[in-house]
Structure formats: structure tokens, C-alpha cells
């Protein structure tokens, strides 16, 4: 591989990790171009959208190179974004050679993040917290905690079987709703609406909304549009899951059930 290709590959790999972990488009674009410049390539074109990176270097010369990378939308991992940011800072200060940069990138990719148990617990705490903030009592929050734990377990299970994200959102919100309504019908005396709202909060597309706006604001209309569409569809999926389950309980109760 010629040197320019190697540099291009490094820059795009760094960008790929960043994009996959939830970085904004302008950040990815800037990181890629800065790395190229840090290694002495000035003739370049980089184009980034939500699920792909396209780049060419030294188009007019002997060692011309071009690359296209498909990047599916992955799990948000802000630790990786922070680490790659640090790496690109080091590269720009010319602190590491290409080989070192590759090694460090590999470290970023494999860096340990919160374990599954911590995630399950965090999901429970998040659900309980929001249930309380949005008007639930302490008792409702505790129920919401267990529903949140259940939800995260379900998401892990579904993720293992590569279920589509839409299906996961519909089934996840249906699961939370069903859990809450079963307890309600059984006479647990919970405020079922607050419990459900707390439970579905982990599914709500806050990341897609925020990142989408930031993309739009920095002029990446296509990418921003993709993210906002994702946010809208996710929100609708949640609504479908909740609505379908409430309807089901209503039908089972013969319409007499006052929810």
C-alpha cells in the first residue's frame, strides 16, 4: 500500500469509529481532514453522511487513493467518541506515527465500557427517576425500576437475535405497558400512566433528535434529515407499542376496564 493510501485508511478508520459511536457529522468530517493534513496530505475531498464516509486524496497525482466506507448506525458510545477525539488531538500535535495511531485506534475500539449488569441497573434507575420526575410517587417509581430492568434485559435478548430496531421499539414499549397494566389490573394501586411513561423513556429517541439537530445546524441537511426521520419513526414505534397494548387490555376487559 502506498503511503497516501495508508494515511487515508487510518483517517477513515478513525472517522468510522467516531461516526458509529454517535459523533456528529461535522466532527467526523473535521477529524478526517485534520488527520490527513497532519500527515502531510493537502489535496483531499471528504464527504460524510450518517451511514457512510467517502474520501479521495491526491487525485491528480501518481499515488491517488479513494475509499468508501459503509457505516451502519450503531450503539451510542460516548466514551469512544471522547477517546477518538483525544487520539485525533494527539495526531494533530504530531505526537504519534501512523503505526502508533493504528494501535491506539484499536485500543479505542476495544476499550472496556460499562458491563451489562451496570446497564440493566442504569436502565432501571433511569426509568424510576423519570417516573418520579413526571409526577409518580415513590411506590410507582419502584415498579418503574423493575420494568426498566425488564426492558433492558429484553433489549439485550433482542439484540442478540438481530431483531430490527423498529420491532425492538414496538415490542419493548408493549412489554413495559403490559407489565404496568397487569399490575394495575391485579390491583397493585399504581398510577399506571406514570409508570408506563417512566418505563418507555429509555426507548425515546433523544440521541437521534439531538444529533439530528446538530447535523442540520452545521449544514449537513441530508444527515440531519436521516437522523430526524429516525427519531420520528422511533417515536411512532413507541406509540404503536403502547397503544396496541392498551387496546388489547381494553378488549380483554370487555371495554369495562377504566384505564
Amino acid at each position, binding site marked *: 500500500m502506498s503511503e497516501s493510501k495508508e494515511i487515508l485508511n487510518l483517517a477513515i478508520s478513525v472517522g468510522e469509529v467516531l461516526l458509529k459511536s454517535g459523533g*456528529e457529522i461535522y466532527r467526523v468530517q473535521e477529524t478526517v481532514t485534520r488527520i490527513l493534513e497532519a500527515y502531510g496530505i493537502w489535496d483531499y475531498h471528504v464527504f460524510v453522511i450518517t451511514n457512510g464516509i467517502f474520501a479521495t486524496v491526491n487525485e491528480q497525482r501518481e499515488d491517488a487513493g479513494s475509499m468508501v466506507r459503509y457505516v451502519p448506525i450503531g450503539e451510542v458510545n460516548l466514551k469512544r467518541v471522547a477517546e477518538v477525539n483525544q487520539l485525533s488531538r494527539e495526531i494533530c500535535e504530531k505526537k504519534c506515527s501512523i503505526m502508533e495511531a493504528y494501535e491506539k485506534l484499536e485500543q479505542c475500539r476495544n476499550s472496556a465500557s460499562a458491563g451489562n449488569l451496570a*446497564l440493566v441497573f442504569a436502565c432501571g434507575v433511569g426509568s424510576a*427517576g423519570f417516573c418520579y420526575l413526571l409526577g409518580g410517587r415513590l411506590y410507582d417509581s419502584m415498579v418503574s425500576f423493575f420494568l426498566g430492568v425488564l426492558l433492558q434485559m429484553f433489549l439485550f435478548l433482542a439484540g442478540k437475535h438481530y431483531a430490527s430496531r423498529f420491532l425492538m421499539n414496538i415490542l419493548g414499549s408493549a412489554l413495559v405497558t403490559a407489565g404496568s397494566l397487569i399490575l394495575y389490573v391485579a390491583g397493585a394501586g399504581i398510577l399506571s400512566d406514570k409508570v*408506563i411513561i417512566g418505563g418507555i*423513556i429509555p426507548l425515546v429517541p433523544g440521541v437521534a433528535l439531538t444529533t439530528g*439537530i*446538530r447535523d442540520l*445546524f452545521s449544514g449537513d441537511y441530508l444527515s440531519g434529515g436521516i437522523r430526524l426521520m429516525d427519531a420520528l419513526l422511533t*417515536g411512532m414505534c413507541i406509540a404503536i407499542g403502547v*397503544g396496541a397494548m392498551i387496546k388489547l387490555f381494553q378488549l380483554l376487559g370487555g371495554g369495562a376496564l377504566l384505564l
Partner: protein
Amino acid sequence: MIDQIFVSMAATIAFAVLFHVPQSEYLLCGINGAIGWMVYLFCTSRGTGGTVASIWATVALTLIARILSAVRKMPSTVFLITGIFTLVPGTGIYYTSYYFVMNDLEQCAAKGIETFKIAGAIVLGIIFGLMLPQSWFNQLGRIWNRNR
């Protein structure tokens, strides 16, 4: 009041864990989320609707996220995404679908529009917060890190 501060902090930290924020930033994320929620509560207690309150809260959140990101040398997304979660209209989504299946279309439309309004308010808030030039925040970060 104090319970609201602590609960919103705990909830934001829980989301920080879910999004794999670096451990050193958990507390700051929590504080940012709590500030956003406090601003929201303050505005609603002063009689503004949820939409206007969401704008102010998001502006506060975004500015603080940018200051923190300059000071801590972290991408601002880290603080922004986790902080914004206290404001995302989960309640609206629930009530919209609830009234939809209850066939109460008037309420459904009202809640649905309200949900979109709050989402739009968050959009506006972030945009206002991003309007100040980045160089100011860089300068702030430089001053802060030099004095330490």
C-alpha cells in the same frame, strides 16, 4: 424541591451509564441534567407553558454543555445528549397514543401537536445555544486550564 434535584441528577447519570459516557464525567452530566430540569420547573412554576420552558431549559443545558466541554476537553455531545433526556417528550408520546386508541381524537390531536411543539422547542433551544461562537468557549477553556 431537593428531591427533584437529586432524582433528576440520578436519572441523568443513569442515562450517562447507558450511553457509555467516560466515568470521570458522570457527575458533571448529572449536574447538567439537574440544572436543565430546574430551569424547566422554574419556568413552568412562573406560568409559562411546557414549550417555552423547554426552550429556556435547552438553552441553559446547551450553554453549560459547551462550557463543560471546553473546560474538560470533551466533545460537547457527551454533556448535551445526556442532559437533554430530562426534557424529551416521553409523556407526550404516551398520551398521544393513549387518546388515539381511546378514540378521543380531539385530545389525541392536542397531545400530538404538543409533543411536536416540545420537540420543536428543544430544536430551537439547541440552535440558540449553539449560536454563540465556539472561539469564546475555547478561550474560556484556555483560561480555566491555565489557572489550574
